[in-house]
């Protein structure tokens, strides 16, 4: 292999490594943030079926603290699934009609990753029988993603209410994704069987990259750069979304004395109170502040 080919192989592995470590690092960082106060909003989809339907909770019952909590994992999965796969809230509520374009972009991305996965299956397990499916997935990903990105850019650029909130970096992100899908389309146009894409993936996996057209190299190079870039931008919102829903909007579990939640809580009420307002005692802990019944405001 030439120096360039070695670079491409190493860069391919490096990008996957950075992506995996980056996503894991962010997820760990989110999960180790302090335990927030309960801040749920109803409907909470893990409630019992009937309550879930109208947004009810266990607090509609008398003596609920003495009763076991019933939760439905299926309810949460269904709600999360409808959001991930169908962008339910965007469809129902977005006033700018972003839903079809956002769906196209998101599904382009889902299918792009699926395509890469199928290519890996093909080259590692030597399963050429799925090649037609792999190709269809890839082609649909490119077209759908490119259409979604392009229309979202146009929407954001031409609608004054959206453009106000769209920073240059937001356009850059969409253009970046468009470049991946666009070069994918060009790869397909120049190689309808996408055989060169297979060769590229095979070369990366087995450290034996053969000559492939520049457009294929560019397509994968852009994708690999995207893998490195994504975990450190708001494109990682799919991970944040999990924590937003599961540890905030749907987190309705009350703590019991001595429970892990309580232990974590105890640690947190022992933090120093840093705030400088006249009704705070900055050299004392949170709990000491809460217990302060002298109530004499310190003079500034």
């Amino acid at each position: 292999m030439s120096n360039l080919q070695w670079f491409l192989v190493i860069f391919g592995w490096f990008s996957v490594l950075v992506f995996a470590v980056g996503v894991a690092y962010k997820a760990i960082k989110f999960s180790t943030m302090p335990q927030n106060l309960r801040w749920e909003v109803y409907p909470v989809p893990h409630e019992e079926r009937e309550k879930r339907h109208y947004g009810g909770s266990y607090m509609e019952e008398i003596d609920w603290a003495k009763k076991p909590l019933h939760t439905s994992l299926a309810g949460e999965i269904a709600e999360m699934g409808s959001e991930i796969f169908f962008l339910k809230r965007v469809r129902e509520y977005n006033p700018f009609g972003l839903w079809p374009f956002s769906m196209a972009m998101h599904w382009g991305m889902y299918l792009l990753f699926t395509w890469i996965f199928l290519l890996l299956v093909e080259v590692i397990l030597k399963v050429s029988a799925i090649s037609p499916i792999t190709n269809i997935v890839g082609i649909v990903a490119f077209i759908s993603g490119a259409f979604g990105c392009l229309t979202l850019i146009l929407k954001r650029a031409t609608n004054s209410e959206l453009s106000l909130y769209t920073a240059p970096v937001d356009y850059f992100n969409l253009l970046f994704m468009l470049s991946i899908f666009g070069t994918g389309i060009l790869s397909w146009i120049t190689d309808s069987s996408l055989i060169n894409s297979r060769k590229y993936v095979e070369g990366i996996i087995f450290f034996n990259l053969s000559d492939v057209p520049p457009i294929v190299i560019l397509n994968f190079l852009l994708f690999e750069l995207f893998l490195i870039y994504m975990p450190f931008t708001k494109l990682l919102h799919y991970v944040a979304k999990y924590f937003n829903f599961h540890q905030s909007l749907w987190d309705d579990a009350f703590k019991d004395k001595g429970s892990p939640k309580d232990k974590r809580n105890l640690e947190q009420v022992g933090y120093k109170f840093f705030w400088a307002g006249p009704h705070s005692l900055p050299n004392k802990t949170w709990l000491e502040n809460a217990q302060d019944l002298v109530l004499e405001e310190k003079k500034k």
Partner: protein
Amino acid sequence: MNKTMINFKDIARLTDEPLVTLRVEDLMKLPYLDEEPPIEPPKPKWLETYDFSLDGHTPFDVFPTPKTNEEKEKFVFGFLSGLEKLFNPQANWTFLKIFKLTMDYCVKCQTCSESCHVYLASGRQEIYRPTYRSEILRRLYKRYFTPSGKLLKSFVGADVELNYKTVRRLLELAYRCNVCRRCALYCPIGVDNALITREIRKLFSQELGIAPLELLKKGTRQHLKVGSSTGMPPTAFTAQYIEFIEDEIAERTGRKIKIPVDKKGADIYLIHNAGEFIAWPDNPAAFAILFDAAGINYTLSSEPLGYDGVNYGLWFDDIEATRIGLKHLMIAKELGVKKIVVGECGHAHKAMCVILDRVLPGDFALPQIPRESCLPLFWDIVKRGRIKLDPSRNNFHVTLHDSCNVARLMGIVMPQRNVVKAVCAKPLREMTPNGTMNYCCGGGSGFAIMNSLNFPQCRKKLSERMKVKQVLEVFKDVLDPKEKKYVTAACSNCKGALRDAIGHYGLWEKYNILYGGLVELIVNAMADIPPFLKWEFEE
């Protein structure tokens, strides 16, 4: 409709001219009302002292415009210091995760826009969009505290200039949102722009001691010092208000009921919003009649704070919320009750039953001191037939306003509906939308009690407007004043806002629309006492 074009740089405009001037003709149209009072400009004498540069309104009589540049710089510096603390895991452990994820991962799709009653009521003026204030804060944070913002500046949107006007307008913006959190239900990513509002309020309160008079100085501070945010001392509670209510009950029902106060070992410690004793004494009176008839073993408390279940800290200040909540729970422990039941006060529900769960050690956890809403208890009393009911007593049209704190933020939706259906003669008229998707009354997060300067006008015209529209629409086929109509709301702040809106828009005079609590409806339907409800409106 005239929509003022605004961008983020305008927030720093060095002028006293408001970014937006509200005019009735630009606001969301109200059906079935031909006219309404105009929007008056601020009084000239106020302009010399206070800042009206957001939209010509302010509640901040406690914060006159600083006279010197040094004072202004100190204010800006304090803001920056507080902003940094909002992102500090120890200083802001209570909400850091939700706050940070909202700040970092909002994709600005504006899906939440149409959820907001204030934004819609304003005629979709940009400054009231749920994401506008969040974006200002985000851009400031990026510019001053993130490497990408410092390096790439406007490329990443870190382009809002920081000056006195920016911070002052942001303070004002934090009080143009009811923190009803309807927008959180709309967000595909689960970010919470209403929380950003609350965090901005918290920054100003906890770092600079700045909050509207009625929330901090005459709110939580007064509550902790005197015993009630109303200013009612413990002596007046028992010697004046409880005795008055007992006399009223005797006079109107013929029943001599001794309201239990400080009764150790009772099953239930009932805690009201003390504003009820002053503004709507029929509400605690109805509780006393109902609980007496149903044989509920309960008590009130005359301890300082024990007779006032409000917790204004919920709206703007974590530590004040915790202080008040802790005192409530300590009183319950001293009384030795089995549980606390919260009266008809939405935010007290939320503070007591939800928020306090994770700000205090395990001795105060919910299973140790159970806290519940009064609404399931009402339904239990009605369902079990513990009182004799005559629904024909409530032979008028009834709609139900859901308190956001009770419905959307606690999931208590059906008990109150079941009660209305059981005690009223006519079918319940549901507003659109209702339940967890309801619109705020417009009084949420303190608005109902904030009456300084010209803020009430802002409240009436913007935040209460959507509820007025809903009420008119739900009664559209029976608007004839010969038909009695009742809006029931099991929340003091909601009732305050309804009183305000009904008075301002003339719904009582024009359409015979009255408002009131839920327990009053139940007691009005009690067959073995005279009708309880007074069909009269007082502003």
